[in-house]
């Protein structure tokens, strides 16, 4: 096996190399500019609004929110129906549950704040916020101490699953809830 390198290896590219590098570069730049362009032309984008908030403060807000808009309970979990267009709050809890079942109206935009609270447990974990349905899934991170604001418009009525998809301890796989969207 030869391991010597030619003395001069700096030389022009062959034709096919030039063509391929050009094609590849165009594709790479295209996929790069697609991201800012999609922010302008499309309605499915990563939200750009978030805040710092202490775990206890967010818990206070979630409790107040649930109390104010609770319409009923399902298996001990409050179902809340906030007014369309309002600020709404949802948290993953330290006992591997979701803080409420949201009941939303289709076609209305909400400012959905997501974060993590202790909720009767000892620790506010990181969670994965994953809306799942037969048609799609959408995923965001829940990080304790941070309020992530998703300006979300449920487009179609139905019942959607809400599961945790970030490992958050031993109760992780039981952490399933739902979001109800009314037509």
């Amino acid at each position: 096996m030869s391991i010597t390198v030619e003395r001069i290896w700096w030389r022009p590219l062959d034709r096919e190399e030039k063509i391929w590098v050009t094609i590849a570069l165009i594709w790479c730049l295209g996929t790069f500019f697609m991201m800012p362009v999609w922010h302008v032309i499309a309605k499915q984008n990563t939200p750009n609004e978030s805040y710092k908030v202490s775990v206890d403060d967010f818990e206070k807000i979630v409790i107040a929110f649930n109390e104010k808009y609770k319409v009923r309970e399902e298996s001990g979990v409050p179902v809340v129906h906030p007014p369309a267009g309002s600020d709404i709050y949802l948290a993953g809890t330290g006992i591997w549950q979701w803080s409420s079942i949201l009941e939303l109206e289709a076609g209305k935009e909400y400012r959905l704040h997501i974060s993590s609270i202790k909720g009767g447990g000892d620790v506010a974990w990181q969670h994965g916020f994953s809306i799942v349905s037969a048609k799609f899934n959408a995923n965001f991170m829940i990080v304790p101490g941070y309020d992530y604001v998703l300006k979300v418009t449920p487009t179609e009525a139905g019942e959607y699953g809400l599961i945790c998809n970030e490992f958050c301890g031993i109760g992780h796989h039981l952490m399933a809830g739902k979001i109800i969207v009314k037509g």
Partner: protein
Amino acid sequence: MAEQFRTCPTTGLKVHLPAETLIKVNAVAAVVCLLVGGLAALLILLTRWPAIHLLDEEWFYRLLTAHALDMLIAWIIFFEVAGLYFGSTVLLNNRLPAPKVGWVAFILMVVGGAFINYTVLVGQATVAFTSYVPLKASPLYYLGIILFAVGALTAIGHFFAALVVAKKEKTYEGSLPIVTFGLMCAATIAVFTLLHGAAFYIPTFLWSAGILPHIDPEMYRLAFWALGHASQQINVCAMVAVWYLIATLTTGAKPLNEKLCRTAFLLYVLFINVASEHHLLVDPALSIWHKIVNTSYVMHLAVLASMIHAFAVPAMIEVAQRKKGFTKGLFEWLKKAPWGNPAFASMFISLMGFGFVGGITGVTFGTEQISIIRHNTWSITGHFHGTVVLGTTLAFMGITYYIVPLIFRRQIFSETMAKLSPYFFGGGVFIFANAMMFAGGYGIPRRHWDVTFAGAQFPFQFDPTAFFFLALTGLGGLLAIIGGALYVLNTVASVFIGKKIQ
């Protein structure tokens, strides 16, 4: 000094004996880790296959943690250290400047690896690979990772020192050979990675020991992925270097244009590490501009690099093959390639698999907005099994068939096993990774013990098609495990009972 070298009769390469011993021990440690990680893989696989659902939840998460650490960190970094010593000594007719330092590094890594495996297996560190705070493991776990990282850093420092010595003692002329140049780039990427590892594992260790009160979870995520994702970029870079090496060894090919290949490696060094952002695209706190610039490796320049390598490696093989007279049509060169040579088969499957399965999906899922539908689903797991397993692991398996005769001076125990292994492994992981990605498309989460949500308050029912892909993942995984077992058994048998080569 002279008696510390031997000359390989077949290749004519000069081998520094202390370096040879270090290459041996690191390679053996790597294969042991692959074995442990592989056993964990089998058990996890049989648990995520809903029809079998083997382990209980506690053991599932423990073994998932162990599998990730033994594979993504231990197997690959041990092997890379062996590769770095090889690239900086044997390929350069060079010596390893301080073999004792090599032993210190090795011992640190072994002790670190032992701490990690012990704490995880006894249940003191069921925190998954990421150990996202505030999930807390015992301090020994973090200490294990720190020791491992310090050991790896020491080995990399040693590699750079060897390069300096080689240059000073003029053991080679002109530029570094492309393989060593690629390894040097991988080592640079590794230093970035391991420094970030130190920057947050040390505070996290102190937090776990009760000394620090709080670790900011978002800062932890930012720093963790500079280790967790960037460590896989070391693999990409090292794997590409191995492609060039195997292409040369098996077909006598030479890079068509070194300028192009080296520029591509340089683009890796500059930009590949920022793609740690792939894990933070749907995180709070970071702006969309930080996300877009970083997730795209700065305008996809590192993707351009991969596309260059993906062209340059088969092109150099094609040119070499055409010179041998395989000039009929477009693909005679490929049909008549040495497919019976396990190193070639591994390399070419690795090349294609990395590009078509891992690479395409990596760029696509790493697009800022597309992350919304892929983040933390099984699609991501499918993607990185396409890169790290089908790509890196298979390439490393391929080069083993040269390392065993050259360094261990043993014949490969069974030619048949060696021939079959890459096809089983490559085919298995191909099915497995793709099936995972389809399952993830239905929203099947990663790191999840039970996607039927039995016993949950509000169980969600996934589309039945998703369960077809879960089963297909299981089947593909079993095939891959057969291929992996063939490799491990064959390698171990060759090293210990293979026929000696004088």
